[in-house]
């Protein structure tokens, strides 16, 4: 890595003692010698292991649940179903008044994705819990499922989630989050070329080294200590408090040292049910995802579809950009309504375009609920935008890097969501890329600045 101090030297003071120094990390020796304590290093006598009975169907009604055989399995201590959970229907963003509550801790009457938690089994060993889980009999009536976002949005599609009533999240702005800036149709009318293209991604996994999990120990005084690898301590504590209808003062979360997150550990899934299990049994409880659960049960990054329509001038200016984004939330909201909204605030990318129209939809389908991941609401949008930029440049016969200089945002430029640009540095990044990659551009672009307008 190289620090190129020549850029922005006039707006930066390099007079600090500790900041800017490549100090060795104080926690590294512990990490690389296996001494650092993670949540799973907490082990208690008499600790129970929790395993989930999960739906084998993408969408089904639950006719009945029979746990009698499982209860007789050696080592089984307790079996939990929906009626054991005090506030079973929840949604995590309710903490900041983003509803409706649309998800169950344990399925109640219905499952909406393959892998959904139905019954929790607690046993003396992981093996006993796993074996007993296989003996729980759930009678399902399979329902039609929908996996494709376009299909889900059509009239008459199977309804994924009754708490929403339709297969998209209803914002205060309607069926999508909207950004309107300038007059996009007038922009298209004056453009020399129009290019409309569609981009698609598939869900991906966070793949942390340490899978999601927690260990809960009763403190002996109606308080419970939860050793957890959540990425958000109080967010998880406060949601647990709601789900268990338990004062926050009874909950003690210990964590803060996590083996990789990437957004995969902000969904509040393992802690509430493990604490409930510890409360109902009076025993310590461990609930740790297997790698298979981490990959197929834990929220992935949403699949997204992005449709971009651009009007571009022969001289390289983008006159108008219309973006329609679809985020596949899976069966439940989790953080997805926010991810789709974040996309609306991110388009049309780091370019100054006078006419912009953005609609972003959060769509429900019968798949593993997606949620936050590194680059939430932005990564797939950037893929679509920057491939589109390449296509536009080639369409008008311009160098792709020079084309970006022409449209790059600079300090003071108004963005589509009506915030003035501050602290821009796109131009300088591209100038350095031109040098480092030996990708020459015209001298006028090398003379540009993000904060000083040339005469």
């Amino acid at each position, binding site marked *: 890595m190289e620090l190129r101090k020549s850029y922005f030297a006039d707006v930066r003071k390099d007079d600090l003692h500790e900041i*800017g120094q490549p100090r060795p*990390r104080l926690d590294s020796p512990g*990490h690389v010698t296996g001494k650092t304590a993670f949540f799973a290093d907490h082990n208690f006598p008499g600790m129970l292991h929790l395993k989930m009975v999960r739906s084998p169907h993408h969408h089904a009604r639950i006719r009945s649940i029979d746990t009698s055989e499982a209860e007789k399995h050696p080592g089984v201590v307790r079996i939990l179903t929906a009626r054991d959970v005090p506030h079973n229907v929840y949604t995590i963003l309710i903490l900041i008044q983003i509803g409706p509550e649309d998800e169950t801790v344990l399925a109640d009457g219905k499952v909406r994705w393959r892998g959904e938690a139905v019954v929790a089994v607690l046993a003396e060993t992981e093996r006993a819990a796993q074996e007993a889980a296989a003996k729980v009999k759930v009678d399902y009536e399979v329902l039609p499922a929908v996996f494709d976002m376009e299909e889900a949005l059509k009239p008459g599609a199977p309804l994924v989630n009754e708490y929403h009533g339709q297969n998209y999240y209803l914002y205060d*702005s309607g069926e999508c989050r909207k*950004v309107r800036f300038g007059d996009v149709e007038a922009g298209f009318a004056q453009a020399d070329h129009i290019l409309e293209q569609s981009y698609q991604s598939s869900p991906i*996994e966070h793949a942390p080294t340490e899978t999601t999990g927690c260990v809960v120990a009763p403190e002996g005084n109606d308080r419970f200590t939860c050793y957890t690898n959540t990425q958000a301590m*109080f967010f998880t504590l406060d949601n647990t408090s709601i789900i268990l209808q338990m004062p926050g003062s009874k909950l003690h979360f210990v964590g803060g*040292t996590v083996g990789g997150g990437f957004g995969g550990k902000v969904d509040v899934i393992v802690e509430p049910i493990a604490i409930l299990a510890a409360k109902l049994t009076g025993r310590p409880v461990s609930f740790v995802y297997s790698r298979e659960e981490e990959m197929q049960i834990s929220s992935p990054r949403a699949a997204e579809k992005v449709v971009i329509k651009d009007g571009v001038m022969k001289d390289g200016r983008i006159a108008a950009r219309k973006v329609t984004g679809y985020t596949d939330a899976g069966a439940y909201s989790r953080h997805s309504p926010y991810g789709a909204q974040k996309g609306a605030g991110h388009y049309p990318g780091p370019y100054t375009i006078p006419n912009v129209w953005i609609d972003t939809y959060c769509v429900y389908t019968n798949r593993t609920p997606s949620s936050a991941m590194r680059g939430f609401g932005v990564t797939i949008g*950037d893929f679509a935008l920057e491939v589109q930029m390449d296509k536009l440049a080639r369409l008008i016969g311009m160098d792709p890097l020079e084309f970006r200089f022409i449209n790059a945002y600079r300090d003071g430029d108004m963005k589509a969501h*009506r915030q003035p640009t501050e602290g821009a540095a796109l131009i300088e990044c591209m100038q350095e890329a031109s040098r480092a990659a030996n990708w020459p551009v015209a001298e006028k672009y090398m003379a540009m600045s993000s904060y000083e307008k040339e005469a």
Partner: protein
Amino acid sequence: MAIRRGRGVAAINYPTGMNLGGDPTQALVHSTPTGNFMVTLSSVDLGQGMKQIMAQICAETIGVPTDRVVVDTADTDTSPHCMGTFASRGTHRAGNAVIQAAREARQVMLEVAAEELEVDARDLETDGQGNILVKGAPQKSISIFDVALSAHFKRGRSISGRGMFLIPRSYPEKETGAMKPSTCYAHACTVAEVEVDDETGEVTVLTVKNIFEIGRALNPKMVEQQLVGGSWMGISHALYETTEPYYPSRDHGGTDFNQYLMPGPGDLADTEIIVLERPSADGPYGAKGPGEMCANPQIPAVANAIFDAVGVRVDTLPITPERILRALKAEGTV
């Protein structure tokens, strides 16, 4: 049939933090009896080095070496609220809270030192080595060790501080979408060079040159580890990863690392990282949040390089050999 070479570019920006429900983080700082400093947070270190960075920020602000600061993350019985570690917010939000807390603690520390030295606190400065000096008369000084002892056992002062950083909630305007979705923006430009085997559809990323503008590299070595890791993740996202290879079909999802593919050591591109620093107006010592941004520009850069190599577009991620071959076949190229 040939190995074809191509080059692609992408340029992006990335927002720091989130605004959905307000974006707060708090920090507490206090001195021990011998002048070490404890930072108490409920922010989470995911392995990226949050604790180290908060220690350096606290040390810089108080005026002591970093090894005199201990950071305790995440015990809800003792630590104040943090929204969490996500949205590239950790360094920016918690860092600002630590600066505020450390400034308050520093002020008490200087007041105690002023009493001991019988001078005005405004005339004191720290040397960054653990001492407090009278400006212009550095021979008149006291160690922070002695100041802390005095505060604890003689003066009855708590050298401590509270820090709070809040970005208030922004409600998007319904019709226009006017909103303030985040604070400062980091930037990047990536140039990727690839080879594509038009017989097998396999892509080899030869080189990836990443230019990142991140406000301030608070610890350049840690910046490097995060940016190199992010660059790898971006390439992996572009070419390898998915839990649903035939999305929207739910079939054939990987359940372990034998089935869920990622590039291994032999697949690593020659990776170059260049960092620019335009300090942000509201960041801790000018820092922005580069944690998420650094994994984004490689994806379109690689996609554009593949087109440059073989002349077909694959607009669906991941860009697998199967998709490349199907696109070549559709074009009639093979």
